[in-house]
């Protein structure tokens, strides 16, 4: 029996470690999705930003955020941290950090091409120390009694298996706040109502980023079970179907546009996180398809009607498809629709709205504060030259600049 316990403990550490690494790999995906979508003069910045945000967030979440969300700290000897379960607590931290660090990675795509480097990193750190873990703890650790209240009131707590709301909607609405505080890129909109979208630099890099995200997403969702014994093949299946739904809807609604198709897959995956453990695969297909269509439609509204310069469209992608996922889980999770049941639509709506509201307000406060104190926007000249030369002193293809 000893052997079994040992094996089970080891298997769980492996399980979460694999999950953590798969989500870490998604961050490379975030980087390339942005590299491909921004203009060439901001490619390097996209890359360095993602890596730096990840690094700063690791330290911040370890020292502050994780304490806020789960009351767990790391100021103990290594032997204690390791404990009797082969350091399960450590890989759990790693896994959840990879979620937390997705917040700035999501935002990054929205505020691309015009934010100053260090102020942007500072804002990322602040968000991962406060707003994000606050909501994370409320939903996933039962902090502040919110979940208890929902359960008492509506009969079920807010269900968000892998973070449609906790991670994606929150990230997307924080991004919206950041984008609004920063304002549009130079020349994106004219005073007379004109709109000049900037074409992307590199579709293959964008697609590479999308593939890295798609593949890693199965770690994001499946490993949210947090133990081998808790694993569910349904989560994998539903993630697949939602991704497929997202692609198909975006393909049709977006007329085979490569940007829509590759982001449609992500919209589907964003939408399924919350209910991936309890909806039926066909439900997942529909959830993903609606996520994909929503993205295509709302991307246009964001850019052209609301005139919000959200470069990668992270608000429609994560903010809206994520909120839809939170709600959808309350619909398609019902047994009547083939789901496993145990969810309540009102709980889902209230929980989703709470996340969205907190993110929007918190985001406005943090970005406004950073902007008013140290300033978060590049100077016009720096923005014009591009963040690569302005911040990093080098472009994406330096050798080319040295020919004639």
């Amino acid at each position, binding site marked *: 029996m000893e052997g079994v316990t040992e094996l089970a403990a080891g298997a769980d550490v492996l399980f979460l470690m694999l999950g953590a690494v798969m989500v870490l790999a998604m961050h490379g995906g975030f980087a390339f999705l942005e590299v491909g979508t921004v203009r060439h003069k901001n490619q390097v910045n996209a890359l360095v930003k993602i890596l730096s945000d990840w690094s700063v967030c690791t330290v911040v979440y370890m020292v502050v955020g994780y304490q806020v969300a789960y009351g767990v700290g790391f100021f103990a000897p290594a032997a204690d941290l390791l404990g009797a379960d082969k350091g399960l607590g450590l890989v759990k931290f790693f896994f959840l950090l990879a979620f937390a660090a997705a917040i700035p990675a999501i935002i990054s795509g929205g505020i691309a091409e015009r934010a100053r480097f260090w102020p942007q990193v500072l804002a990322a750190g602040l968000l991962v120390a406060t707003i994000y873990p606050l909501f994370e703890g409320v939903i996933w650790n039962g902090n502040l009694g919110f979940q208890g209240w929902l359960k008492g009131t509506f009969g079920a707590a807010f269900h968000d298996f892998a973070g449609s709301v906790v991670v994606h909607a929150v990230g997307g609405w924080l991004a919206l706040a950041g984008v609004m505080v920063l304002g549009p890129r130079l020349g994106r909109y004219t005073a007379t109502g004109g709109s000049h979208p900037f074409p992307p630099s590199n579709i293959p890099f964008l697609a590479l980023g999308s593939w890295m995200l798609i593949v890693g997403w199965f770690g994001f969702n499946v490993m949210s079970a947090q133990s081998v014994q808790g694993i569910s093949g349904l989560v994998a299946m539903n993630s697949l179907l939602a991704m497929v739904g997202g692609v198909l809807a975006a393909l049709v609604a977006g007329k085979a546009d490569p940007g829509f198709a590759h982001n449609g897959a992500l919209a589907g995956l964003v939408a399924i996180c919350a209910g991936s453990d309890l909806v039926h695969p066909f439900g997942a297909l529909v959830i993903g398809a609606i996520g994909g269509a929503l993205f295509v439609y709302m991307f246009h509204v964001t850019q052209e009607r609301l005139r919000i310069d959200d470069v990668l469209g992270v608000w429609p992608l994560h903010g809206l498809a994520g909120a839809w996922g939170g709600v959808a889980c309350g619909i398609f999770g019902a047994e009547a629709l083939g789901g496993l049941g145990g969810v309540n639509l009102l709980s889902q709506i209230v929980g989703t709205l709470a996340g969205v509201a907190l993110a929007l307000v918190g985001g406005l406060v943090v970005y406004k504060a950073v902007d008013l104190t140290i300033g978060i926007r590049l100077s016009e000249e720096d923005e014009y030259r591009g963040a690569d*030369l302005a911040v990093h*002193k*080098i*472009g994406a293809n*330096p050798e080319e*600049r*040295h020919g*004639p």
Partner: protein
Amino acid sequence: MKLIIAIVKPFRLDDVKAALNDIGVAGMTVSEVKGYGRQKGHKEMYRGAEYFVDFVSKVQIMIAIPDHLVDKAIAAIRETAATGQIGDGKIFVLDLAQAARIRTGETGDEAL
């Protein structure tokens, strides 16, 4: 007929083109070039090493044009390409001995 070769800042191209269109210049040929002049290049840094990029990106516009439009064209280019900053560029005018349209074989002003 003349051949105008103008070197301008890349981001002025669209305006220059529009202005030339307005005065009746129907065609032009454009290429990416690197300029060297009073406007100096810039310094880049990579892994601690400095790289001087001597050359500045410019756009070259080549226009074959009937004689009577030359002055108008020069004026149009100047008005739209000038930012008042060093590096705005140059306009060169050459005599064009002959011009032909490949498709029809028309020559002279007809060909432009």
